Structure formats: structure tokens, C-alpha cells
């Protein structure tokens, strides 16, 4: 701080607290709504104080609520989300670190072409090629399968670039020393590069876990079998009721549970999260 201005500091705190209150409002209201029964919610604006149906609502959403919408059990969908997020995280990191290793530590024909092919993925998000990608996955018989849900999403230009950039800063002497000692490329990769990349891998894990957890469009396209539904699909199903009222108390309980894992990851691994976010630049 350049100079001491107590009043301005007070204003700063007031502004930030107000900002936090506004940012947290939807989540606060969701938590409050999840502790009331539906008739309380329907009879006017949401109460801003907790009600008495907390245990009832959460046990309903965890046990029987999803069956009413033709969905699998909530814990089943949560497990699907977890498997999908972890598979995408591990898959992206594995194939990206290997390709970055190839691009930085080898000289071979078509190296530049390989680099550009990877780069192009940045320009082709799934949102712009919905139909043809769906068709490919269908032709390969990968609809309603874990392979179809995860493999098409694990190509990653940003992760590859992050590892490439990091490898470029690893001193050349390490490689030379390793070669003098007779280490081949795979031994060098396993014993030297991989341990050095630990922090970067950690940072990417946090970002990619969130990326995988919140996936929506892709599961919507490739899964019709409710057995593969993730929490995000379940949320959508629970709010699209043809007639009758949306069971807001349960939807809100479900939302609160569905956003909890990634929020906890961000809050408790904040250093890695910020590092991952700012270094991959999306």
C-alpha cells in the first residue's frame, strides 16, 4: 500500500463484503431453499432463513428423488460424474505430456505438422462440430459407452503447450548428464522429467477435474442410456418437467451437492488452481 487512508480502506472492505454477498446470493438462496418443503417455496418468495426439512430433502434426493424422473440413483450419477472427470483429467495429462516430450526432445520429419495439428484443436471446440462428431462416435459404436464419453474430449492443445513451455525451461545439462550416464529417452522421461513436472501436473489436475466435472453438451449428445447420466444431465432432467411443478426443494438440494466437489477442490487447492488457470490461459 502506498499511503494510509483509513476511510478508503474501510470503503474497500465494505465494497468487497457487499460484492461477496451478491456473488454468494444465488448459492445462499439455494442452500436455504433446500431446507424447506415445496409448499413453503410455492407460497411466496424463498425464505432467507433455514427451514426444518434439511435432512428430509437431502435424504430424498440421495435415495428416491431421481427415480421419479426415470433417472438412476443420485449416487450413481455422482459416481458417473467422478469417473468422467477423473478419466478426462488423467487422459489429457498422459497424452499431452507424451506429445510435449516428443515435440521438445526429438527432431523428426513432420514435427512442425504434428504441432499444428494439435494447435488446430483450439479452434474446433465441440460446440461448432456437434453433428459430424456425433456421427463419427455413432459410426464407431461408441454411443453410450465410457470410451465415447471421455476419449473424444481428451485431446488437449493447452495442456500440451503448457508442458512444452515447461520442458523448454528444463536445463539442457540435465539431458546431457543423463545421456552421459547412459539413460535412454524413456528412462530420462520417467526419472527426470516426470518428477520435475509434478507441480505443473498438479495445477493441471485441478483445472481439468473441474473441466471434466462440468461437461454438459458432450454427455447430452452421446448418452441416451440413463445408466451413463452424469449429475449435470440429471439436473437438466429434474428441471424439465412437462406438467406439474418443479420440485425446487429437491432440485436445489441436488444443485448444492453437485457443485460441492469442484468448489471444495478450488478452495482447498487454491494455489494450484490459480497457477493452473493463469498458466494454461484457458
Amino acid at each position, binding site marked *: 500500500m502506498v499511503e494510509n487512508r483509513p476511510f478508503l480502506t474501510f470503503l474497500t472492505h465494505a465494497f468487497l463484503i457487499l460484492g461477496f454477498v451478491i456473488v454468494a446470493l444465488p448459492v445462499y438462496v439455494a442452500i436455504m431453499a433446500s431446507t424447506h418443503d415445496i409448499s413453503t417455496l410455492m407460497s411466496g418468495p*424463498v425464505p432467507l432463513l433455514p427451514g426444518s426439512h434439511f435432512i428430509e430433502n437431502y435424504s430424498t434426493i440421495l435415495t428416491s428423488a431421481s427415480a421419479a424422473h426415470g433417472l438412476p440413483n443420485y449416487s450413481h450419477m455422482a459416481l458417473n460424474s467422478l469417473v468422467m472427470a477423473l478419466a478426462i483429467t488423467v487422459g489429457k495429462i498422459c497424452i499431452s505430456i507424451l*506429445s510435449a516430450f516428443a515435440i521438445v526432445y526429438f527432431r523428426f520429419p513432420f514435427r512442425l505438422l504434428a504441432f499444428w495439428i494439435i494447435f488446430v484443436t483450439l479452434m474446433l471446440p465441440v460446440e461448432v462440430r456437434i453433428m459430424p462428431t456425433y456421427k463419427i*462416435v455413432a459410426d464407431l459404436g461408441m454411443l453410450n459407452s465410457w470410451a465415447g464419453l471421455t476419449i473424444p474430449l481428451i485431446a488437449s492443445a493447452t495442456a500440451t503447450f503448457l508442458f512444452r513451455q515447461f520442458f523448454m525451461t528444463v536445463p539442457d545439462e540435465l539431458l546431457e548428464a543423463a545421456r552421459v550416464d547412459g539413460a535412454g529417452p524413456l528412462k530420462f522421461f520417467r526419472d527426470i522429467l516426470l518428477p520435475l513436472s509434478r507441480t505443473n501436473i498438479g495445477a493441471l489436475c485441478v483445472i481439468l477435474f473441474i473441466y471434466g466435472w462440468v461437461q454438459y453438451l458432450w454427455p447430452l449428445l452421446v448418452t441416451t442410456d440413463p445408466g451413463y447420466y452424469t449429475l449435470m444431465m440429471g439436473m437438466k432432467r429434474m428441471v424439465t418437467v412437462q406438467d406439474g411443478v418443479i420440485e425446487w426443494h429437491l432440485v436445489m438440494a441436488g444443485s448444492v451437492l453437485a457443485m460441492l466437489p469442484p468448489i471444495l477442490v478450488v478452495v482447498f487447492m487454491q494455489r494450484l488452481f490459480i497457477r493452473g488457470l493463469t498458466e494454461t490461459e484457458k
Partner: protein
Amino acid sequence: MDTKRTTFNNRLLPYLLLAPQLAITLIFFIWPAAQAVKSSFEREDPFGFSTVFVGLAHYQQLLADPNYLDSLWRTAVFAVSVTLLSMVLGLAFAAAVDRLTRTSKVYTTLLVWPYAVAPVVAGVLWWFLFNTSTGLLPFFLERFGILWDHDLNGTHAMILIIIAAAWKQISYNFLFFLAGLQSVPQALMEAAAIDGSGPVKRFFTISLPLLSPTTFFLFIINVNYTMFDTFPIVDATTGGGPAQATTTLVYKVYQDGYVGLNLGSSSAQSVLLMLIVMLLTFVQFRFVERRVQY
């Protein structure tokens, strides 16, 4: 593009290392994109038996279709509003947190977590807050004489998705602006303070100009986010309605292609979207290179 001073000289190994990444990219990215380009020039008969080459007919139809132009315009309004709203708030929070020393970590934690909320959940939460029968906000708006109804009023529906989309993006902008502000040289600030300029003046004459690379970068990233990553918000809340009022370009590709099975038109729309992403990516990378020298 550089490699290391010394490299390994295996012939086959680099290709094996690259194989998984390249295979996935070719099969699930480049091939479908090429298919989209191809079928945007073709018309398929309803039974899928034969296709005829129709040239630019799909594109001509699209660009003459008031629905499409409407969706283009709405997407632009959506993207610019979300970008401005989330960037201004992100910058304001970052400037405030940057002023504090001991408590800055606490406030950062309090402000970053919305990034982790899934777009579909963010949409549902705001949809609930604005819900006409149970929501908190329509109840307050009514006191100001505003009858909120996003099921019938297109403008209201648009405001709803703008707020939901911007809310999620504030933390991203906040973190980047904070990093930018923290790298502004302290000496500049002290010199300006000695010359008698107050905090507000320093912010506008020193911090803000020095932040312009970050601002520009974030602008591109945010436009990209609003155009492509907000599909779940639209799909779970307004469903593109009422009367197409919140049908973004991506939502229209999905509706026309996946739901309406109009392959040719959907492909032509895909190709136009690809051009937009390419333009954005090009601008972004041109700029990032320059930013390194900054």
C-alpha cells in the same frame, strides 16, 4: 519452433509418443470438421440415400434467413453484455483486493469459487432466483413496478442468461486482473503518490493503461466463453425461448442439427462458427506473442 540443444535420435519413438494425441485429434476433431465443411455444400434427401452438391446454397439461405441473422445479433448482444459485466466487476474486485495486504487472501478465496460451479447449475440457480412464483428477485422487482416474466418476455429471458453467464465468469476475470495489478511496479505508484495523485487517479492513469494487454486478452477469452461455453445455461433454463429470444448461434446449431436433423443448414452454421473461433484464436495468439515483450 525450437527443440533442445541435444535431442534423442530414436526414429520411431517420437511418433509413438505423439500417436494417441494425433489419433484423437484427427478422428474426433479434424475429420468431423472436414465433414461439416463437405456437407455444408451438399443437400441430402430425406431418406439419406443420395446427396447432391448444392454449392453455396445453404450459406445463401442462412444469410437471408431472418431467424439466423436474429440469432447472430442476439449472440453479439449476449457476448458483449456478459463480457462487459463480468470484466467490470472482476476489475473492480481486483482493484479493491489489490489495495489490501493482510486480508487479500481471504477475499480472493471468497471470490474465486464461482468458477467451479457448472454452467448448468449456475443457470438453474439464477433461474430459481428469477422464478416468477417462488423467486426472490421478481418479488423485489414488483415493488418497483416491474412485472418479471422470462417465460414470456424475451428481454427478461436475455437478462437472465446474461446475469447467469457473467456471474460464473467474474472470478476468472478477477484472478487475471489481480495478477496484472500486482505486477504493476510499486515505484510508479509511489512516484505518483508523491506527486499528489490520489488512489482513484492512480488507478485510471497508471494501473488501467498498464492493464490494457490483460484487458484485451480477457476480452477475447470472455467473448469466446460466452459464445461457446454457455450452451448449458441456455439449454437448462430458457431453452432458447421465448420466441427464439435467447437462441444463441451454438444453441441454433444444436437445435437445427441434433434436434431438427437439418444436416446441410446445421453444417453451414458449424462452418461459420468455426470461422469465428479461428478469428478469435488468431487475434488471441497474435496478441499473446506481443504481450510477452510488453
